[in-house]
């Protein structure tokens, strides 16, 4: 079992002093600025640190962090796979640093790569056309639903409702609402899947779309997907695929073949680009041929061996500047190109195998199966959040807790394909060791991490949402 004490460089509530609290130097500015006097300063307090001091500061911060480069990070539904560093090298190539306003003739390589990624993603998803512009998964959802809305309006059949399963990601509800739809919540069936009778009852001539992820949020494949597609399509609605769990299907099954009309891809999950941190990200959207004319503008196409930008005929407009977050897209392209067809297929195989191996190794009940790339274990009588805090002391990041809500005290676990057997064994030991700890021990955990138990109630009651809050505190 991994035993670890995370680094601490300060007192209990302060782990490493801020740069502004370290030695500062006053820098005098001479010379006239063309800006008005009330916008300029003559001197500035800056941290007066030597290079080693600065290097230590950032190294310490990184040691107090937890990342997939520190250990397993099995946050269910998040697909925290390792991001191979060669993709960073590719993105750092100076040849990729071209201004998006340059003439098409002078950026043929850039356009070729974008076109290539559109094509890769279309083939992986079984879609006919893909836009790379949305800057995040949730932005992709919004874009996809806006495309569906544009399609209904163009048919002269505007609709008012989007159906979302109760177990769906919170972003689905939000995206549908942001697009101006009423959200109809679909209860989960007893087996954890979509209940066809409930779906029949929910669809109507107001149904614009059903948003679904497959495998669903407890890793179950929606085996009635063909019937689900028929029910939605017969009512005149569109079927939307949330790409959150695409890692389970790579190279083996395609949303387009299941009857989905629109989908988004989470390149930070499935295609190993960095997660979050506020961005930049990318959430490409794929559509069937029928919907391609509504894609955001501009879109890349190839004509007689040359690549060009054009505006789809009935485009919903722009959802981000230029062609999206280019360097993120470069990383996704590099990852797909390096893996190739057989590598992608191997990825989904190992993702599913790893989840099933881990599930076998741990001593927890798992109410819903057979699952694929992730599973929802239950902490039973224990508080899932306390067990998760306990796991931190055994040197692993815990799974997603208390979600989805229809699994009591859920611990939604997704180890990803990137973990070896040895690392899965470490993870399994941490699961069981935390469960064996006493309630008192768990309530006091974590005791070995840089940040100890966070006061969640105080954080929610008195959120400090910017650096300015640090000043108010004093």
């Amino acid at each position, binding site marked *: 079992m991994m035993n670890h004490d995370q680094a601490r460089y300060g007192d209990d509530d302060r782990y490493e002093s801020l740069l502004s609290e370290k030695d500062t130097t006053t820098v005098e500015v001479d010379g006239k600025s063309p800006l008005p006097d009330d916008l300029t300063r003559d001197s500035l307090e800056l941290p007066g640190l030597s290079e080693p001091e600065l290097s230590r500061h950032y190294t310490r911060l990184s040691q107090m962090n937890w990342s997939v480069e520190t250990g397993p990070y099995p946050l269910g539904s998040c697909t925290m796979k390792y991001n191979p560093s060669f993709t960073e090298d590719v993105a750092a190539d100076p040849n990729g640093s071209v201004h998006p306003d340059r003439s098409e003739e002078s950026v043929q390589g850039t356009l070729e790569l974008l076109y290539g990624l559109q094509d890769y993603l279309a083939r992986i998803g079984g879609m006919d056309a893909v836009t790379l512009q949305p800057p995040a998964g949730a932005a992709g959802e919004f874009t996809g639903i806006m495309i569906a809305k544009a399609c209904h309006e163009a048919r002269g059949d505007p609709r008012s409702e989007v159906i979302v399963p109760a177990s769906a990601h919170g972003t689905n509800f939000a995206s549908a609402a942001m697009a101006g739809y009423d959200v109809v919540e679909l209860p989960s069936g007893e087996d954890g899947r979509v209940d066809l009778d409930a779906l029949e009852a929910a669809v109507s001539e107001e149904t614009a779309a059903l948003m679904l992820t497959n495998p669903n949020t407890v890793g179950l494949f929606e085996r009635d997907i063909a019937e689900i597609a028929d029910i939605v399509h017969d009512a005149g609605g569109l079927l939307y695929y949330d790409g959150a769990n695409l890692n389970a299907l790579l190279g083996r099954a395609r949303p387009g073949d299941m009857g989905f009309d629109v989908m988004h891809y989470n390149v930070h999950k499935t295609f190993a680009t960095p997660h979050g941190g506020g961005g930049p990200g990318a959430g490409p959207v794929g559509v069937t041929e029928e919907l391609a004319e509504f894609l955001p503008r501009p879109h890349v196409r190839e004509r007689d061996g040359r690549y060009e930008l054009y505006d789809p005929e009935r485009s919903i407009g722009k959802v981000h500047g230029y062609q999206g977050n280019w360097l993120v897209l470069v990383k996704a392209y590099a990852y797909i190109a390096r893996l190739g067809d057989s590598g992608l297929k191997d990825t989904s195989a190992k993702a599913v195998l790893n989840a099933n191996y881990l599930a076998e190794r741990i001593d927890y009940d798992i109410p819903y199966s057979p699952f694929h790339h992730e599973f929802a274990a239950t902490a039973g009588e224990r508080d899932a959040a306390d067990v998760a805090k306990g796991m931190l002391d055994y040197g692993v990041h815990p799974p997603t807790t*208390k979600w989805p809500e229809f699994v009591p005290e859920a611990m939604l676990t997704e180890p990803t394909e990137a973990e070896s057997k040895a690392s899965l064994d470490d993870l399994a030991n941490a699961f069981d060791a935390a469960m064996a700890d006493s309630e008192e021990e768990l309530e006091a955990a974590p005791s070995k991490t840089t940040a100890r138990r966070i006061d*969640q*109630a105080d954080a*929610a*009651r008195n959120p400090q949402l910017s650096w300015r809050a640090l000043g108010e505190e004093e």
Partner: protein
Amino acid sequence: MFEVPTDRKYQESHEYATTDGETATVGITDFAQDELGDVVFVELPAVGDEISQGEEFGVVESIKAVSDLYAPVSGTVTAVNEDLFDRPELVNEEPYGDGWMLEVEVGDDAEFDELLSADDYREQTE
């Protein structure tokens, strides 16, 4: 053992209403606040709004859950406990006191008869 004062009446969904005179004070029970855990946010109607028995009138959010609040009586809201916006923890600390939520001018006395007595409510929570 949770507090269930006998000077008021209760609804199955864990709201209470005082029964003295023309104005009812509405809040959630000690049992409810304990089940919810630390309350972090309360959303209430505005003074002058109408609420109806059994219908949603607000939302209470804790670190564990977000729950709708159901009106135990019908009437016009005459006061809202604005202290809860800054100090939602009052719902945990004094659910029957400073953690009250609304004052409602009630029209229909018969509605009170449909609510549970302290004894019946206690039985429900046991």
